[in-house]
């Protein structure tokens, strides 16, 4: 077996008896960048939720770093998940009661205790997304683009193996979407994380090494842009 980060075999998810997808097989290797496209409602979000076991699959096997976690207990999954996955959602990524720095360090706080080096790492990451000096700002004072960049930094804070970005630029205008996308890709590259990008944007999809399309309840590999 190869050293893939996540792998799914023959995955199937039903809601109320109707299949959202079935027979899905794919794997993501270290440093690989992957995109999943598909019409709205085709099940992209469901696929990544099942992949990271936020939702149980109806059928099939899920491997995280070659370990079959399909039937692992919820305590173990809660423990493993933040070490493997970092998330960037389309919106409402940040906790409004915390300031920027506190938001960035929050995932670390959940899985361990915060050390001085974590704070420095957070500040360094903020620098990499051109957001120096906003540590103490209240998140409600940030623009949408800034928020998504902060979310990208937060996703990176625990050195995850893969960043899952579910339409991270969906709410942004073209210019800041491009900028944000660049930052996310740079971050992943700089820290050696894989990237799983869910997007409607064809241009972004093409920038990934591998592209998939979810449609008619199955996942098809479009191309290897390698």
């Amino acid at each position, binding site marked *: 077996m190869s050293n893939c980060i996540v792998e799914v075999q023959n995955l199937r998810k039903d809601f109320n008896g109707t299949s959202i997808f079935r027979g899905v097989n794919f794997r993501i290797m270290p440093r690989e960048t992957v995109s999943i496209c598909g019409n709205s409602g085709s099940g992209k*979000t*469901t696929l990544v*939720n099942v992949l*990271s076991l*936020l*939702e149980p699959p109806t059928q099939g096997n899920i491997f995280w770093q070659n370990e079959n976690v399909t039937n692992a207990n*919820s*305590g173990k999954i*809660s*423990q493993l*998940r*933040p070490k493997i*996955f970092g*998330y960037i*959602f389309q919106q*409402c*990524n940040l*906790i*409004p*009661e*915390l*300031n920027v720095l*506190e938001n960035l360090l*929050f*995932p670390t*706080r*959940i*899985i361990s205790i915060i050390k001085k080096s974590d704070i420095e790492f957070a500040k360094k990451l903020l620098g990499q997304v051109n957001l120096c000096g906003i540590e*103490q700002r*209240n998140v409600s004072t940030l623009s949408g683009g800034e928020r998504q960049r902060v979310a990208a930094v937060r996703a990176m804070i625990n050195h995850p193996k893969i960043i899952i970005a579910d339409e991270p630029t969906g709410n942004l205008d073209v210019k800041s979407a491009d900028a944000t996308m660049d930052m996310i890709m740079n971050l992943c590259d700089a820290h050696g994380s894989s990237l799983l990008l869910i997007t409607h944007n064809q241009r972004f999809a093409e920038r990934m090494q591998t592209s998939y399309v979810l449609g008619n309840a199955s996942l098809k590999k479009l191309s290897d842009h390698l």
Partner: protein
Amino acid sequence: MKWYIYLALKQLFPSGKKISFFSAMSIFGVALGVAVLFVVQSVMEGFQHNIKRMIVDTQGDVHVDRQRIICDGDALVKFLQSFPEVEAAAKYAYGFAMLKRGNQSLFPLIKGIDVAKELRVTGLGKFIKAGNLDNFDCGGIILSSELARSIGATVGECVEIYSPAMLENMNSDEVILPKTLEISAIYETGYHNVDKSVAIVPLDILQDLYGLENGIHGISLKLQTGISPEKFTFQLNDSLDESTHASSWQEMNQDLLFVLKTEKTMIFFILVFILLISAFSIASSLIISVVRKTREIGLLSALGGTKKQCAACFLMQGAIIGIIGSAVGITAATTIVKFRNSIVALFVKLCGVDDFMLKFYSFANMPAKYGVRDIFSVAIFAIGICCIAGMAAAMQVAKINPAEALRNE
């Protein structure tokens, strides 16, 4: 610090803001409930303490009596004083008699005491409002304040006493000569029932009036400080013969004590509703915040939080409100209790309540009493109720499915 406690604190006291409106209102509600509960309970406790003190001061700690008249009074006193727990013992006898001043007559209870001993057993000395006890032993009488007032008697005047024994002799056509006694003092305990109608005379005079010879009705005891009257009487009754019985002041006044206790419990239950109402509003606000933060709860799961931890975050919010609310409430309450008399005085000034009302309700010098235990029990109670409120929200959190929560707009 555990992350869910940290987040609970942050949600109540967000970064960059001092305090959220919700926390301020919730804490205020709990503090109000705690303060009212605490102030009322300590004032009640103060009043009750005074009543109990009055009982002990007027009756002594323990009474020993017999079904018939005690003829060997001195021997019994000697026996009782052989107990190291007994500090002092005083013989007494009592009976009803007609008291006459001019053409006014009343039928008070007359108590005969050995004044020197009595002063060591009861607090009679501190209730004397007029006159003194210097000449009491040679034909003096002490009247309770209301009795004196109702017959218009003052210190130094004489009153006449007719005992039932005298009336019995009426048949034999004798002229009855009443006993004439000089009022040597007037006493007032401040409690109507005691002050209403009691006269105190030297024991030998009462014995004479009632034809008791050397007999007495009972002996009152004062115990050494720290000795529980209830425990001591239990022990004492074992060493007394069948017909002689010792009873503690608690036993003798158990009806009154029961009423006092019930009263306090009832007030507690009524006031607890203030706390319950604030707990309900905390619960509903927290549940609203769970609904509002559904997506955030999904996010916490994605970041590695377990369902239990997410639920604990909301439970903690209830607990924190309870802890801070109790602290604020108790601080406020102890301050109010400390300055209660100035507060009442200010209130009187502002509202123009007249002095008579104040005296009537003993508000002029309001008693209050509380201990560390009272503080803890009120605080723990309030925190418990707030935790239950937090629990209601936590149970909503436990129902949330993280994947669905993340879809929540």
